[in-house]
């Protein structure tokens, strides 16, 4: 409950905004609170209604960030633990020694163009190892596709990804009701929100020597 009061206070402060309040500070405070709640969620400690509030906060945060245009990329060193926490959900392409971490939406045209480029360039696959997570953009109705891909075994996901994003094959039956898949996706979503992944494709490049 105390968390809810804090959230409401924060939200109210936005509604009756005092011009002296710095938007950036509010965003930072909101992000911090989301962080805390996400950690609880990952541990499985969050109640259902708290999870709803968390979702609300995330939406609000996104809107604020967008209107404020403050998209600061998380430093790689800070982002790495988050990648590690969702490592089991990554789809990898390439065998190179340099890592690239990418968030894509399978329906997003730019994400598709990006994956196509990687697919076509063997030398880029030899140089880099791409760690790919699927994370939807609001405007595309990609959730069924995301669930469909994550419903497959790890070894099958890449080919399916290529089918959808490179060959642009339509999948007829996308219905997935596997709770584990849904929860897994929510994990990705939580991480992505924390990291302010606001566009697709969104990259983190970790070159050799870094």
């Amino acid at each position: 409950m105390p968390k809810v009061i804090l959230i409401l206070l924060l939200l109210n402060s936005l509604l009756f905004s005092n011009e002296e309040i710095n938007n950036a500070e509010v965003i930072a405070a909101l992000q911090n609170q989301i962080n805390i709640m996400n950690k609880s969620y990952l541990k499985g400690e969050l109640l259902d209604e708290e999870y709803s509030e968390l979702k609300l906060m995330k939406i609000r945060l996104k809107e604020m960030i967008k209107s404020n245009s403050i998209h600061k990329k998380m430093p790689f060193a800070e982002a790495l633990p988050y990648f590690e926490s969702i490592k089991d959900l990554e789809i990898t392409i390439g065998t190179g020694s340099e890592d690239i971490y990418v968030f894509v939406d399978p329906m997003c045209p730019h994400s598709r163009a990006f994956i196509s480029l990687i697919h076509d360039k063997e030398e880029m696959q030899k140089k880099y190892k791409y760690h790919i997570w699927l994370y939807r953009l609001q405007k595309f109705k990609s959730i069924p596709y995301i669930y469909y891909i994550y419903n497959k075994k790890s070894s099958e996901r890449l080919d399916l990804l290529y089918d959808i994003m490179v060959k642009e094959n339509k999948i007829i039956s996308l219905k997935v009701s596997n709770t584990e898949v849904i929860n897994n996706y929510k994990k990705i979503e939580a991480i992505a929100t924390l990291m302010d992944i606001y566009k697709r494709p969104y990259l983190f490049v970790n070159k050799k020597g870094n």
Partner: protein
Amino acid sequence: MYELLSSKNYLGFVIKHKISIFIITAIIFTISILNINMDLLAKNENQFWVQNISSKNISNEKYISRLTINIDFNEQNIKKVKDFESNLHFNYKTDSIFNQKFWYHNDSGEGSESVSFLSSKNMDFHKLKTFIEKFEDKSNIYIDKEHVYIYIYSDNKLYLNDIKKYTDLDISLDNNDKSYMSNNDIYIYSVAVLILIFILFIAMFKHIIAGVSSILMILITSIISIAVIQIIMPSYLLHITNILLLISISLLDYLYFYYRWHNTQFDKTSIEALEQSLNRNITPAIMTALITIISLVSIYSIGSDTIKAITLSIILPSIVGLLLNLFFLPALLSSFSIKYTDILLNKIYNKISAKMVHYNKKMINIAIAASVLFIVFMIFEYSQKKDYLFNSQSNSVLKYSLNEGNNSIKDQLLLSYNLEQELKGKFSDIKSIKSISQDLNDITKITNNETLNDINIDEAIFFLELYGMDNELNKVESKIILEENSLMKTNIIFYLNNKHIEGLSFADKDSKISDSKFNQIKFLMYSLLIDLVLLSVIISITFRKPIMITGSLFVNTLPLLGFAVLLHIYKLPLTIEVFIAMAVSMAMSSNATIHFMYSYLRNRYYKQSEEKSLKMTILFSGTPLVISTFVLFFTFLILIMSGIPELKQIGIYTAVLLLLGMIINMLILPVIILNSDKNDYSA
């Protein structure tokens, strides 16, 4: 040393063997002329300066010229320009609006976005128009409302005539000036100079032998000197200024000998006049040659090839001229006599010398002290204000590269980017900078809304690789494009030079040459200053007059100082042409100082009064100085007609300096000499 030499026997020997002397001179002259390699005469400035850069450092570089095409922007004209560029491709690499790729923010909205690039290649007119509008800030170096710009890479310097044959469009090149001298140009100029000198001498002395002897002396001295220089420095390209120096030096001592011989025939025979001429002039002529050699040898031994060539261009004609004045000239003149010897401006010289004897000693000392202070001030001024010191008349494209050294490619790219931003901030004339660092910055602005830094550079490099545009990543080069008519290019080179950035080198031939010129000019200026001091010291020791250190320094520096003031007022740059002009002026001044001093002190030694000594000095040393100045003034002025900017500058600067030198030597030098006279020889 003021005792009269007995030159009667010597003259007898010369006259007796004059045929042999003519034959030997003719043989040496013929051998010299046959051995001169005309290909070793630099036809243009760049050819001359390129040899100062090691071939390893310049052979891969290209000249970059900006071609401006004046057209109205419509479909038909753009097609014409495209066809023109295609024709150019047979011989040159080009960079234009028709082969550009610009990075842009591909945004489908609501988070669906990426960085991509758009290529103008093979675009039709309407797409190209949209492309130009979309990337206006980047395409303005290639196209604006009235012009299309094409950047041409060539092995040799490009001139408009080389390009005009490909099109009938209205085009112009940045470096439109004629900087090319063919062998024919050199011959024409040389013949013009010789004809001018011939006519002037005949007009002044009213006898054909004046013209003939002057031409012969100049020709023989110059040809033999060039041949010897080419033996000493076999593969060195001589600049036309070396030849001008040869001509100037060869005239100087000759005139003292000839004038004395000519005028003494007023009341003496030709042979007696020759004897007197030799008596009066051998000693100062030998002194001049020796002093020249001593003062320049030290500079020769420590200098670059350019300096060596310039010092040889002064030393050799001094030696050769002396030998010719001692042997060939007396042999030649002994066959002629002058019936009507007008002594030029005698009345004026009488009045001047009478007034000069009663000069104000205190004023002279104040003037010397003030001039010394002014010299110090000018040196300080020049060391502070460098903006206009070195300007560039050539094109407005500059390219440099950052080589690996100890830095990783990422560090080089970041260094390159930061340097580019620094240059943009400092030089307002920079229109644009094209480089891989700027491309990376374009990418990071799109992907992260940030300028390039050590964190986001990896992602930017990745996108370059992803789109196959990473082939230039191993070569960190920056191409700076300046506004039209900008004179900032050499300032930028100067600035980059002074920053001493490890691994930075200029990557286009013009900039490399400017850099070389800049390094040479610094050294040349210091050499000039050292030589001034050395000359003054040696003169004072030779004549045993310590006061002549400051006196001689004063007289030789004053014309240079006056000239420096003019440069400062008109914000004219310090260039090699200025140095050449100063070298000629210094040669004239020091020569005049020696002859004046010798003549005056010799007269005083033989118990002549100050006034009489001064009159004789002005008459027999001053008149040749005036005549040689007059002749050389017109000789150098002809250069204005060459159409080549560097030669025009040499012509004007030298002509002005010669006049200044003459005025100071005629008006102030006698007073300095009087000042140094401690009445040791009072009657």
